[in-house]
């Protein structure tokens, strides 16, 4: 039971299972807005693809699927490490939480590094906003590159923001601000990070495999 005190009334007894942390609810509502944002982004890109007059390159014709599969694997791993960090601190294991948070940071930085490398290689290969070069070296005018860079770029920006948020969480963790009874900060970050992973799962299929 927890007590909620109002100015006009006597304290009300509320069962603990009925309460929801306002920070957690805030993150969930933010994620709802993110679903709508990515819906517009992915939906708009699909629409451009359906209406594209010059067709669309086949999967793997322009993009490096093995490299991105590795990146997908890394992002899934980083989701596990976040949830492990939360699990550790819920059990009061400070060292375990710190270890898994640092592993998550490594995963996020690795993902961004591979994405930057991928962009450099694609630009070298001739993938621009309004044209691409196929594996025979022929140039096609197409908005393919635009939809690719916008979708993966916005996702990458989310990963970057996640890494910044994670640095704050790690700083707090090393200052001993989380404990067995105070870990909503870790959980709130985790929700955002898992959502970014969830979006990547969908983007990987839609952008790279189909």
């Amino acid at each position, binding site marked *: 039971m927890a007590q909620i005190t109002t100015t006009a009334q006597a304290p009300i007894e509320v069962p603990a299972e009925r309460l929801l942390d306002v920070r957690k609810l805030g993150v969930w509502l933010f994620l709802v807005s993110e679903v709508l944002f990515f819906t517009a982004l992915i939906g708009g890109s699909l629409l451009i693809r359906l209406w594209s007059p010059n067709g669309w390159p086949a999967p793997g014709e322009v993009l490096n699927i093995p490299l991105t599969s590795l990146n997908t694997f890394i992002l899934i791993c980083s989701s596990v490490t976040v949830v492990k960090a939360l699990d550790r601190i819920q059990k009061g294991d400070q060292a375990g939480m710190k270890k898994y948070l640092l592993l998550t940071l490594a995963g996020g930085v690795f993902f961004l590094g591979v994405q930057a490398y991928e962009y450099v290689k694609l630009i070298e290969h001739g993938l621009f906003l309004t044209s691409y070069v196929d594996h025979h070296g022929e140039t096609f005018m197409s908005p393919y590159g635009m939809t690719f860079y916008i979708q993966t770029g916005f996702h990458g920006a989310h990963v970057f923001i996640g890494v910044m948020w994670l640095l704050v969480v790690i700083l707090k963790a090393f200052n001993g601000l989380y404990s067995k009874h105070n870990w909503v900060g870790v959980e709130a970050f985790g929700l955002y990070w898992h959502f970014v992973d969830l979006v990547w799962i969908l983007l990987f299929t839609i952008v790279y*495999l189909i």
Partner: protein
Amino acid sequence: MDTTHGTQAQAEHEAHEHNPPYMGVFWLLLILTVIEVGAGYLPDLTGGAVELPQIVLVPLLLALAVAKAALVGMFYMHLRYDTKWLSIIFLSAFALAICFGISIVPRDYWGI
């Protein structure tokens, strides 16, 4: 502070009570990803003997992606264990997303 403590006590109780299978979900995500990537490489892997037609491949890949996303939501984001209201709030956004997706597909694509 009571409120924070209360909700954390609730989550502690729920998470520990159910003991989410984090590693099991991880291996499942990995296997589904291998199937996804492998499905596209079937012609290369089988020397052109097996190739899934687009009408099979695309729904299969989308179904695998949705299954993976659902696993992340249910187990890693704890929707399976948290209050049902969070699932309703989150899934309502996806319901709107599906409506949006259907509405933007050109008419001739549906054959109407």
